[in-house]
């Protein structure tokens, strides 16, 4: 019968490899991000100046960055949500120059000079926007993930005057999906604000 043995050389090699792996700093992700940034060639980076919630930001970004990723990853405004990232769910809805739009289908570098409003910019002087208040009062959400997009879309729906009937509200809110099915509360919230 053949005897299974581990050679001295193999033992030393594997144990030293394991030891050296253990010495990789804890911030592997940060290190990886730094490397990634260094690898992206300068011609594929762009400087962009955008106004978000009335504050101007000038940033150097990878040209592939979507407005949604810029808001969440660079400006740490995580209210706007990444649902599908393909323009099918509306969770990333923001206002661009006062018009509702999908931040996941907008390139950050194309937002030069444009004014963006996110869910974080709705409340004024510590007071909730009437639509935010209405969502609270009418149970316009359950889990809350789609809610920032719903509220941004709902504010626009009222501004556009598309609140004539329940059917009209539903049609003009069809770009925002809610998997909990809080639609009745959402329609009620919009009717409440539209009636003011």
């Amino acid at each position, binding site marked *: 019968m053949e005897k299974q043995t581990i050679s001295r050389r193999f033992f030393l090699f594997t144990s030293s490899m394991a030891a050296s792996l253990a010495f990789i700093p804890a911030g592997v992700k940060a290190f990886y991000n730094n490397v990634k940034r260094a690898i*992206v*060639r300068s*011609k*594929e980076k*762009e400087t962009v100046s955008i106004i978000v919630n009335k504050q101007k930001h000038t940033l150097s970004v*990878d*040209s*592939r960055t*979507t407005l949604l990723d810029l808001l969440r990853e660079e400006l740490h405004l995580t209210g706007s949500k990444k649902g599908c*990232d*393909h*323009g099918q769910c*509306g969770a990333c*809805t923001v206002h*661009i120059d006062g*018009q*509702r*739009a*999908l931040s996941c*289908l*907008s*390139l950050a*570098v*194309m937002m*030069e000079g444009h004014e963006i409003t996110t869910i974080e910019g709705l409340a004024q002087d510590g007071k909730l926007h009437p639509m935010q208040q209405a969502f609270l009062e009418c149970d316009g959400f359950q889990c809350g993930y789609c809610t920032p997009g719903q509220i941004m*879309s709902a504010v*626009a*729906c009222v501004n*556009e005057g*598309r609140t004539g009937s329940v059917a009209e509200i*539903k*049609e*003009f809110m*069809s*770009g*925002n999906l809610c998997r909990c099915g809080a639609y009745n509360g959402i329609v009620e919230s919009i009717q409440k604000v539209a009636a003011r």
Partner: protein
Amino acid sequence: MRPFTFQRIQSLDQASARKANDGHQCIAGGTNLLDLMKKNITVPEVLLDITKALPDQIETTAKGIRIGAMVRNSAAANHDLIRSKFPLVSKALLAGASPQIRNMASIGGNLLQRTRCPYFYDTTLPCNKRNPGTGCGAIDGENRMSAIVGYSTECVAVHPSDLCIALAALDANVIIRTTDKKETIIPFKDFHRLPGETPEQDNNLPVSGIITAVDIPSNQFFKNAAYVKLRDRESYAFALISVAAALELNGNKIVQARLASGGVAHKPWRWYEAEAFLKGKNATLETFQKAAAIVVKETKPLSNNAFKVPMLKGAVEVALQNCLNA
């Protein structure tokens, strides 16, 4: 998404000159393109932002109306002149996408959007449109959403736009700027292509061509026009079947009729035979039913989309009737 170089384009001449280069791709609204880039279906090396170079006005011309290529879909749909004189355009636009996407998408880009055939969108599957020579997965596969007319053995994909169905019905013209000529005009019926042997080509836009505007000639269809769209859910979905119908009436007599459909072919499809039948007839339900029967006579459904034929027949009848109550 693959890395690309981003360039802001200031003029139409600059746009067409650069677009003629390999790997250069224009972006305006980006609602379809960015999705395709995220899935590595479209992989530009250089992305040309032409939003500042394109016309963004709607203006009246001697022959009708001109819609600038950069006009957003929502702006066109809500424009007074379009709503009053070209309501079919407004109705078709509002039947498409969601309010957010309509606020972003440009008129020029709407003409250039690509099929939503699931085989085109999944890079692990064969598709002659995405990857010529790999075969058509849909023709004997999942073809519930596919064409029922005008397809080839190479491709059974359908054109996804609603706006284009209305523009086809109204005999619009596509205005194009190229490097060699100042302005090229392509009639709408000749702009999009049938798949034939080259399904990778959706349209006849020249290599250096930039769509600058869409012209719609004045017409008498504004009083009696309707757009019917049938889909898997009530809103925010691509058409299984859509019908744009428009009648010019003298009393109860049909002076001329226009009928076009989406969800049926690789390009916006005009039903010329049915239009010819309707001409000179009285606008009655019986006439409409006969026209619908002529329409479906042309169709040849695939293995999984025979349901579209009766759906189309009904949609044509309803659209023509809706013209009378528009």
